[in-house]
């Protein structure tokens, strides 16, 4: 897989073999990535994965130890932040508390010998853009968190930078405001067409906002892809585990494209990549992909299970199933309320399920799951 270096021969941002060390600790190892003009890219990963370090390297705030970064065809690897072209929004917003909203937004313009009337017009335009035309004379402390976030965004966009960097911009906000602002930022980015990189640890945020997601783990990139690719075809057990809920079922290779889960043989398509018969593998499937209706014949990858536990989660039920046969594997499946009623799923009852071949991912070895960590 090489989504990292896209097919575009002239990407807007070209990151090559970037490594960042803090003393003995390696925060980034050999990271390479292309970002195209106008793209919205999310760096997604758990805390400590290096996503913020990469963002700060791109901004020049913590310059990488080795590796190169090119922006719009110019090598910016060693340049200080003031000589790069970007706007940035921090988690804390870093609004200047003693300046009004207008002065905050116009801060970068005032230093460029722009005529006063022009600054005022631009500030008004930006405040309009972020939906706060009437708040210009207030101070940051008088605004809500969401409003402060918009002001920070307006300030970062004021000088029309080529690149917009967002460092966890939504994580200090209430859940509802967060969902609302997600759409607004996405909309704004689309409208302005500014190349944007956002750092987040919230997979939902990444899935809903990004054109492409860069999933990072332990200082490296695990996968780069569209939200759908990341969700549907995770490239590693880590990605599978970090994004969404995933079943990790221990299995053994039992033949060409076939594995055995405690004696139940199923087809896994082309996922085996020549792993030898008898080798341990992990079969992954999302709970919502487990089906139980219309199971016909042996090609349906059907398995007999017993219902161990049923958990009501509002709009659906999450069932914990145990496979029958030698060695009971645990498996989560999401069933609609209708289905539970129609089929009469109850704790303790047996249930035939199907693991559709197209929805399966198989990884070599026995993968660790969240529950193990």
């Amino acid at each position, binding site marked *: *897989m*090489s*989504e*990292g*270096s896209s097919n575009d021969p002239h990407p807007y941002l070209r990151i*090559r*073999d970037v490594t960042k060390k803090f003393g003995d600790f390696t925060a980034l*190892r*050999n*990271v*390479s*990535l292309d970002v195209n003009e106008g793209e919205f890219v999310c760096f997604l990963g758990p805390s400590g994965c290096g996503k913020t370090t990469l963002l700060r390297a791109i*901004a*020049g*705030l913590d*310059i*990488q*130890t*080795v*590796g*190169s970064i090119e922006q719009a065809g110019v090598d910016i*690897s*060693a*340049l*200080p*932040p*003031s*000589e*790069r072209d*970007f*706007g*940035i929004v*921090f988690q*804390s917003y*870093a609004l*200047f*508390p*003693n*300046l009004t909203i207008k002065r905050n937004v116009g*801060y*970068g313009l*005032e*230093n*460029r010998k722009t005529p006063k009337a022009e600054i005022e017009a631009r500030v008004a335009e930006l405040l309009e853009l972020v939906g706060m035309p009437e708040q210009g004379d207030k*101070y*940051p*402390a*008088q605004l809500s968190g969401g409003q402060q976030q918009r002001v920070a965004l307006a*300030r*970062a966009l*004021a*000088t029309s*930078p080529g690149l917009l960097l967002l460092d966890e911009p939504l994580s200090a906000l209430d859940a509802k405001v967060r969902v609302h602002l997600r759409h607004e930022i996405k909309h704004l980015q689309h409208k302005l067409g500014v190349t944007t990189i956002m750092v987040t640890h919230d997979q939902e945020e990444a899935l809903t906002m990004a054109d492409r997601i860069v999933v990072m783990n332990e200082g*490296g*990139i*695990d*996968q*780069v892809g569209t939200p759908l690719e990341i969700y549907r075809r995770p*490239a*590693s057990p880590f990605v599978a585990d970090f994004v969404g809920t995933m079943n990790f079922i221990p299995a053994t290779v039992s033949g060409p494209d076939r594995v055995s889960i405690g004696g139940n043989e199923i087809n896994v398509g082309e996922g085996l990549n020549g792993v030898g018969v008898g080798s341990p593998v992990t079969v992954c499937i999302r709970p919502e992909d487990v089906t139980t209706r219309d199971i016909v014949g042996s090609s349906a990858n059907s398995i007999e299970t017993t219902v161990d536990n049923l958990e009501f989660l509002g709009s659906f039920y999450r069932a914990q199933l145990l496979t029958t046969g030698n060695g009971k594997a645990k498996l989560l499946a999401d069933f609609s309320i209708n289905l539970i009623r129609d089929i009469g799923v109850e704790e303790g009852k047996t249930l035939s399920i199907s693991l559709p071949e197209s929805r399966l991912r198989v990884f070599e070895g026995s993968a660790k799951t969240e529950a193990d960590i």
Partner: protein
Amino acid sequence: MSNAAALAAQPAASGIKPKLSQDDRIMRGFILMVGVWMTVTVLLPLYAMLSKSFENHDGVFTGIANYIEYFSTPALFYSIENSLFIAIVSTFFTITLAFIFAYGLTRSCIPGKAVFKSIALIPILAPSLLPAISFVYFFGKQGIINEVLMGNEIYGPIGIVMGEVFYTFPHALMILITALSTADGRLYEAAISLRASPMKTFFTVTLPGIKYGLISAIFVVFTLVITDFGIPKVIGGQYNVLATDIYKQVIGQQNFQMGAVVSVVLLFPAIIAFVVDRIVQRKQVALLTARAVPYEPKPLLSFDGIMFAYCCLIGFLIIAVLAMACYASFITFWPYNMTLSLKNYNFDVMDGGGWESFFNSIRMASYTAVIGTIIIFTGAYMVEKAKGFGAVRGTIQFLCILPMAVPGMVLGLAYIFFFNHPDNPLNFIYGTMAILVICTVSHFYTVSHLTAMTALKQMDPEFEAVSASLKVPFFKTFIRVTVPVCMPAILDISIYLFVNAMTTVSAVIFLYSTETNLASVAALNMDDAGDVAPAAAMCMMIVYASATVRIGHALLTRGLAQRTQRWRKR
């Protein structure tokens, strides 16, 4: 599967050498300037003093000969024991009295807490010789209540300890109030629900909670006492301590080498106290969690009554000491002519220094406040906010903390050795106002620096990053954002420098000239010449000046708070 694999064919990039921005270069320039300043005003003088202690009169290196002489002269080394004795006894009394007072102000429901606190802070406004002079009028040979000493002399350890307790009380009190008011109320609720007795709660909750504050207060008081010069000079009589020994060796006997030796000896306890205090300060950081609930004392008639009576008593004593100095300054000729007059304020006819010295002090304190605040705050900003340059910044950070460990007498003497050296190109500032200002800024650098650092650390660390991304040079953000936001701390630093410059005697006693005589030095010399009442009058003038500036500062701070409350969160 990752890009790294796909691009493994590419040659490995070599290490990046970040290009410095204009901002980085300016900041580093400033940091180096701070480094040079600290080196010239603290390090080199100390080095000069240290090397002096290993030389004979002719400037020939003699190894530890001076030290051998020192430790074989009982008249000299007995002072070590005296100094330690005074420091330990004074620290014990100050901490005990201040702890109960602070406890009353923070853990009881007595009325008038603000008034009590203001009264308790009065001693800060006075030079340390004021309580000594006042005690002479209370307990001296012609004192109004000298019979309470039951025949004991006030001149000597009794007088010194009493004076030191008065002088150090507010310093201990401020630290203890801070420590006691940052208690977590939830712990006390837990103690009550577990039915712990008040005694047990005190020893298992209160004391551990203020442990670090208490240790810090003990060492601060200890250092203040052992390095103080004014009180033992005025009321010490024949009882020698290290600080007065330095003075006697240098001014009395012109034995600079021995003065240097005593200075080195005095440096030791000061440095030990300094190191312990730094360690304790570092540990204190992680003590309070953000979730702590402030402790709210509940009214309890008997306890509150005792506390109120105690605070009234202490407040009364402090005012009495001040009032006595004030009263004595208006007495025509104690005890023979007790009519009130302004005779003692006619400084121009006294030996020691006229009104000129008072105005010199005002000038010196103003320069120190303005120049010192600019240097210290700007320096702290550069050290805190500059990027990279780690080793240099660390070194300079240490240099900024160092002056706290250097007693005033030692610093003043070190300045003689360094700046009065004929080969020193800075020799020309010797005997001028400049050297007094530089010495005073250095003497009180550390506390001001720490105040600035605390304020700067509360600023969002990303302000500079945002400014850089907007292509605004850092100094614009410094002036437009950092300085306005930190204005309360900046005012605190300047008032601290002003008041200390008004009251200090120790460092400047070696450095004034006839043109730059200072009020506190004049008071000391008048007392030395037997003009005790005029000395009291001069001390009172210092109190009036400090108090006026202090009140002005309070009004300014309040005005500022009102003007900026729209953008300040609380």
